[in-house]
């Protein structure tokens, strides 16, 4: 239910993927840009392979700390099927930034009852206008560290939020260990070069 100059962001992934760190960074940037911000998530089971989601709401004044179905301006997914699962949280004209990562849980491999969807990203594209698929694992490997996936996806997101790149860089400098700062700034920049292209739409 975000109004003008407001942004509702939903970040989803699987325990251990760094969902909470990403939402922390976005909130930091928003606060330093002078906006009101609230973020909400449920802790507890996050370390045990379950779904983790974090809501970030930015605006002149924010009341509810949680987003509603159909209201997210941006959906950021660290895993394909989780992106598809959360798609109905997004506005029809929202932007989905999805890592092509696939994590198949043992409940799928150990039973015939459940299946991993055939091509989650294709299904997302059928239902939403703006879906950006990012092979973040591959880019992270090219940059030399698999843990850069969330920074790469954040880099993509910088294109869709009204904050100067300097604020993002500052947030990274504050939050990341000294020796990882440079590589994270590079990852942010790599992500920032990925935008919705005609091919993607």
């Amino acid at each position, binding site marked *: 239910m975000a109004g003008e100059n407001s942004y509702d962001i939903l970040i989803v992934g699987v*325990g251990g993927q760094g969902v909470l760190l990403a939402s922390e960074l976005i909130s930091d940037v928003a606060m330093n840009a002078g906006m009101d911000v609230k973020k909400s998530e449920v802790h507890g089971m996050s370390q045990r392979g379950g779904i983790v989601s974090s809501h970030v709401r930015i605006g002149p004044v924010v009341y509810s*700390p949680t987003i509603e179905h159909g209201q997210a301006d941006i959906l950021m997914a660290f895993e394909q099927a989780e992106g598809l699962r959360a798609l109905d949280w*997004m506005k029809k004209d929202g932007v989905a930034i999805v890592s092509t990562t696939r994590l198949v849980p043992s*409940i799928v491999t150990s039973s015939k009852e459940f299946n991993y969807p055939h091509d989650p990203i294709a299904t997302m594209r059928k239902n939403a206008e703006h879906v950006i698929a990012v092979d973040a694992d591959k880019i992270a490997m090219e940059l030399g560290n698999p843990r850069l996936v969330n920074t790469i996806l954040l880099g993509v997101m910088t294109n869709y939020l009204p904050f100067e790149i300097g604020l993002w860089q500052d947030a990274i400098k504050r939050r990341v260990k000294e020796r990882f700062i440079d590589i994270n700034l590079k990852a942010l920049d790599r992500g920032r070069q990925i935008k919705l292209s005609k091919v993607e739409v």
Partner: protein
Amino acid sequence: MRELLSGNEAVARGAYEAGVKMAVGYPGTPSTEILETLAMRYRSVYSQWSPNEKVAYEVGIGASIGGGRALVTMKHVGLNVAADPFMTHAYTGVNAGFVVITADDPEMHSSQNEQDNRIFARFAQVPLLEPSNSQEAKDMVVTAYEISEIFDTPVMVRLTTRVSHSKGIVTLGEVTEGPDKKFIKDPAKYVMIPSNARGRHAVVRGRLQLLKRFAEDTPLNIVECNGSKLGIITGGISYQYAKEVLPDADYLKLGFSYPLPMKKIADFIASHEQVIVVEELEPFYEDQIKAAGFHIEGKKYFGAQGELSPIRVAEGLKEAGFIDEIPLALIPHQEGMFPRPPVLCPGCPHRGAFMALKKLGVAVAGDIGCYTLGVMQPLNALDTCICMGASIGNAIGMEKVKGSKKGTVAVIGDSTFLHSGVTGLMDAVYNHSNVTIIILDNRATAMTGGQQHPATGKTLMGDDAHEIDIPSLCKALGVKNYREVDAYDYEQMLTTIKEEIEREEPSVIHTSRPCVLMPKRIMDEPYVVDLELCNGCSACFRIACPAIVASKETNEHGRPKAEIDVTLCTGCSLCAQICPTEAIILQSKFVPEGV
């Protein structure tokens, strides 16, 4: 100074600003980070984990009587454990200020029930504060100490998951010393023998009258006038949801909600054409307002179960006829998705016991901790889970009535055993029970994030501590059959459990492999699958290890063979032990075909 703080961090900050001398609690989602924040960031406040909430509450009372402001924290069900001191503490009142935080969990994100602890405040007749965001959480904690000292009463501050775990911008306040108080002997106030307690109960009744007057005037209860005909009475997180839906309605926001400001409520009702109550869980305001003779509604439209949300509030307001339209999601919900339940980690030392228990088909009384995940598919090895410490008592009862022919086992974690399992074990020995108790000792309170407890050798603030020796403790209680088992040795686990359930005496089986995540991440040499030998029987899939995934290769029935994600495998070897074709091998021993 402004900082982005969670509700829990804000409570810690508030306690620091109020000059609290003692912060004490027992971990429990969503309350845990309050004490962790104090121990990490505000180290001038002495903070500690106690073995359970009752002890924590009693330590807090002691600090307050001794002259230092006290903060006691717990999750909602923790207050059940601490209810005994809590109820009588209302009678004695305080010396230095005393605040108890109850962090409730509507929707049961990580709890076994969703009780509404506001009712506890009314039960004990102590004042209740309900912050709706992080700023209020900090400010109300500071105010709570003033109320506590002015009215000589413990004060309850009630958080809910969305307040505890949401972050918002907080303007920090000044750090103060707190009052300079000393212990003063006063048995008529603090020694609750019947003759004294009768007098104190009268004090409680009188205090309630004073608190009612305070509730009318305190700025914690605000009327927000926007010139609307519709008035909404609300408090806590429900206020934020209602504002999201109807920012321009009139509001009576209850920050101080027990005792209720009934005159203020009466005026608010009288000055609005329509009034509705929006609150999460129980009809706490509603029942009291109705009992005072007013015709208002609330639960009829919003329900008494689960979390509210802006949409749920909007739907209720629509049903009540106050709004016409609700924005709907336009993208359809994706049907038929697989679930992704939380699972035991790769290498979790709890896994082997559940593999064995499943195989034996015994009745398993469970308890609360990571090991409660043993109930999930495909392990399916737990039969009960009621509350912390319940497993041993449950097992004793089941066994006495011979409920299971195959035997009865209790499983309990180390932190839970020390919290409230020890008394159950006394009962087993004392009353000649034949139960078999498995203490799954991973040397951490893992479920809530790896907190210290009296057998880990460290305190919350990081000092060394005596480690309770669980074997000696059990033996001192009179346990004769005590067996130590390696949690990574499946055969040993299976035969030991079998032997002990056949015995006509209580036994304890103790496992002591540490948690693989905390305090140190354990990563031994990983195992790999030899696809030549794997026949796709899926035995290893059924132990529910996240490191074992489906390979692209299939067997003759089209079933996938197994593959191990070496970045996740910790080398616990359990899968290798149960593989019928010995296809799972240490990575260094594996020689691929053609090399």
